[in-house]
């Protein structure tokens, strides 16, 4: 698989019909052990089509974050991961990171620069884009999350809701095709939560998010997965899965 093929992919905006049927995410036989030897991922099989919006549910420690961190090669287990048809390897990981925008649960981890503008510009700067393109992208990303007026502020002086939205902008500026979010609504007040959900709903990217927020899953996802002990134990349309009381109960989840 030559890495130059990745360049032929359109950043973002998957078409609904899609002429060439290539899955956004394909995972086969993925295993990952923590350094102490316990299995965190125990044979993950997953296919996500372009444009799908997938909620990943399950109790703490089920392996949700570990799975997500494999999608852009932050963690490397054994097994096969294909992003937009391209296998994730040492050679392709850089370009795959440009396609998979990862938003960490805690914005304080995500935001490491002294100003909001610097942080949103980091991805495009690192990629080596030119100055005009960087400024255009930063401006567009900040506008998309409604945070243009805080561009010069210190990230850690913003509210949690604002920091979450800035975190999203830091990956939107890279114009990825896939967005991966770890607990995007955790800790938000109802207004900030609603704003974030509306924002996510307005984005065209393929979406995969881990969450404990069942109402958010119901409202924003089309498909839901449940993980337990490093395996995907349930997979189906979100409406069906969330209506299936016994299944939810079996995996320790509650109806919204």
């Amino acid at each position, binding site marked *: 698989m030559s890495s130059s093929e990745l360049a032929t992919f359109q950043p973002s905006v998957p078409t609904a019909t899609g002429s060439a049927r290539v899955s956004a995410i394909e995972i086969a036989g993925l295993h990952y052990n923590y*350094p102490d030897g316990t299995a965190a991922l125990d044979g993950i099989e997953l296919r996500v089509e372009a444009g799908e919006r997938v909620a990943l549910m399950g109790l703490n420690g089920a392996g949700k974050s570990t799975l997500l961190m494999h999608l*852009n090669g932050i963690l490397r287990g054994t097994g096969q991961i294909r992003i937009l048809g391209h296998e994730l390897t040492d050679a392709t990981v850089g370009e795959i*990171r440009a396609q998979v925008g990862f938003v960490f649960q805690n914005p304080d981890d995500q935001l490491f620069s002294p100003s909001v503008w610097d942080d949103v510009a980091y*991805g495009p700067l690192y990629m080596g884009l030119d100055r005009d393109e960087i400024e255009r992208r930063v401006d567009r990303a900040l506008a998309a999350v409604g945070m243009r007026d805080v561009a010069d502020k210190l990230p850690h002086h913003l509210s949690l809701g604002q920091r979450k939205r800035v975190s999203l902008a830091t990956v939107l500026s890279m114009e990825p095709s896939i967005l991966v979010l770890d607990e995007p609504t955790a800790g938000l007040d109802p207004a900030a939560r609603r704003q974030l959900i509306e924002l996510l709903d307005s984005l065209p990217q393929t979406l995969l998010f881990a969450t404990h927020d069942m109402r958010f899953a119901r409202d924003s996802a089309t498909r839901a997965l449940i993980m337990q002990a490093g395996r995907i134990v349930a997979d189906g349309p979100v409406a069906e899965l969330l209506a299936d009381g016994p299944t939810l109960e079996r995996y320790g989840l509650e109806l919204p």
Partner: protein
Amino acid sequence: MSLPAWLTAERYQARDSFLHRRDARIKLVVTVSAAFAVTLTPEGNWLAFGAFALVVGAFMVLSRLPVGFYLRRAGLALPFVAAAVPLIFTRPGETLFTLPLFGWTASTAGLVAVASIVLKAMLAVLMATTLVGTTPPQALLRALERLRVPRLLSSTIMLMYRYLFVIAEEGQRMLRARESRSASRVNLHAGRSVGWRAGVLGRMVGTLFLRSYERSERVYVAMAARGYDGTIRTVRAEHSPDTFDWLMLLGSLSAFAGIVVYVLV
């Protein structure tokens, strides 16, 4: 999401050996005395260094800690020791060799000085490693307090140890987030320049410092809210030295004093 295992000595502190069972205060006094005695020994006293090496070696055997642990810890001290290397060229004395490109002359006296400093540092570090590898931090801190080390110092060390890991993990998560957004595009040079990346890292350190500083204020308020007045109180059973402890103290101090008196007189 934990620190590299080799950074912490916890799994070694949980072992058992003659030294693990010794009173933390005794071990602390012996370690500090060893460091002083080694430092007091003048350069080039190879016989004395050999004698110290025997004593330190005996402690290493008694600790039953793996050699790898000692090597990693000693390795951490090497960069600091390297600061002494220029002495080989600056110390006047009989010419040993001349560095071809620079024309600097190395002296025998300089070589003796550097070798002595490296030996002293290694002996002291190995002793300290023995102490740290056989004593849990709580016991060590309590020993500092009971030896009447100023409260400000012991509580500062305690809080540093408590939050070191929190801050290190926060730093690690920031690095992971940066890695996540360090992407490349075909036909574009990723990563800009070393200088730019160094600048990003520098600003990350600054951000981490600011956050740690703000955290310290929150921690202090939380402690003050629970009545903190600068004293760490404990109701844990206090250890008291037994016969073996006193014997070890007496034996080591006499050995160190003997060696120092021998070389100085």
